[in-house]
């Protein structure tokens, strides 16, 4: 009887161990690139690539690579419901829909931003480096299917 209980416990321990192990493996597997595009921006020279990845759990992530823009105050990364954007100040009309992805982490280098759940990528087609304070677009990357 005791032996049986021990066996059951051992099997249960193994099951728990495997159960805990599998999510770690899922994290290691690769994310899939869905869309990509390159930045253009002349007023505040902006360059590099923006790519949207989908992870195994379905969550979306924006990654900037070879990225460079001018440093500035209160700069944010946003997705806008437009097929592209010009460098103009005041480019965002009050009715332009946007999704906030957070403050720009650095004006140079590779960086990741979480895209909120339920964001419709067929609608929000352009990444903008956006200076909130002056309503200025530092650079925009129109995204195309990868």
């Amino acid at each position, binding site marked *: 009887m005791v032996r049986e209980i021990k066996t059951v416990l051992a099997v249960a321990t193994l099951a728990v161990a495997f159960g805990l192990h599998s999510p770690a493996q899922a994290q290691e597997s*690769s994310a899939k690139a869905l869309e990509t595009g*390159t930045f253009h921006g002349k007023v505040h020279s902006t360059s590099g690539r923006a*790519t949207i990845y989908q992870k195994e759990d379905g969550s979306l992530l924006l990654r900037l690579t070879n990225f460079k823009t001018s*440093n*500035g*105050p209160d700069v944010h990364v946003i997705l806008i419901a437009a097929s592209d954007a010009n460098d103009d100040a005041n480019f965002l009309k009050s009715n332009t829909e946007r999704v906030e992805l957070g403050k720009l*982490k650095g004006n*140079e280098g590779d*960086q990741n931003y979480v895209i909120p759940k339920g964001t419709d990528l067929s609608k929000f087609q352009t990444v903008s480096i956006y200076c909130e304070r002056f309503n200025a677009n530092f650079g925009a990357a129109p995204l195309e299917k990868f």
Partner: protein
Amino acid sequence: MMDSHSNSGRSRWKWLLIAVGIPVLIGAWWAFRPEKLWINKQVNEPAPFASTTDPQPLYTGLLEGEAHKTSGRATIYKTADGKEYLRLTNFSTSNGPDVHVLLARSDDENLKQEIVKGQLDSIELGPLKGNQGDQNYDLPASVDVQKYNAAVIFCERFHAVFGVARLEQF
């Protein structure tokens, strides 16, 4: 008497100037943060995938073609063992005789014409496998992709450029 009055007036002006000037300067500094023109903030976050056994995209670009409507994406991948290949995705072009896939220089004037007059400086990747659908083409070893940075769909028989994708770093 007059002197001391004008002195105190001047000093009042001085204090007023300081009382107004300093907040204005601080406000202007806060708004424009001019020091950021010289100060960079460098970050370096890892890619969202840990596995490096999958082929990694190196260069990518969209295919464009006027004469023979060509669309899709061309991407150069590098495998874990160092081999490179070109992959076409969402690809569509018109069918034609003797159509090949080439790498050429994106600044080549010949690519701006629909028909190439002389010899196109290019690297042959093979005959086009299909005019629609996803397909892979191995790159010969030691191709300088920095130099041959455009994927070209090219009709050898008529020297016609069906489509060009200018490849940019992924």
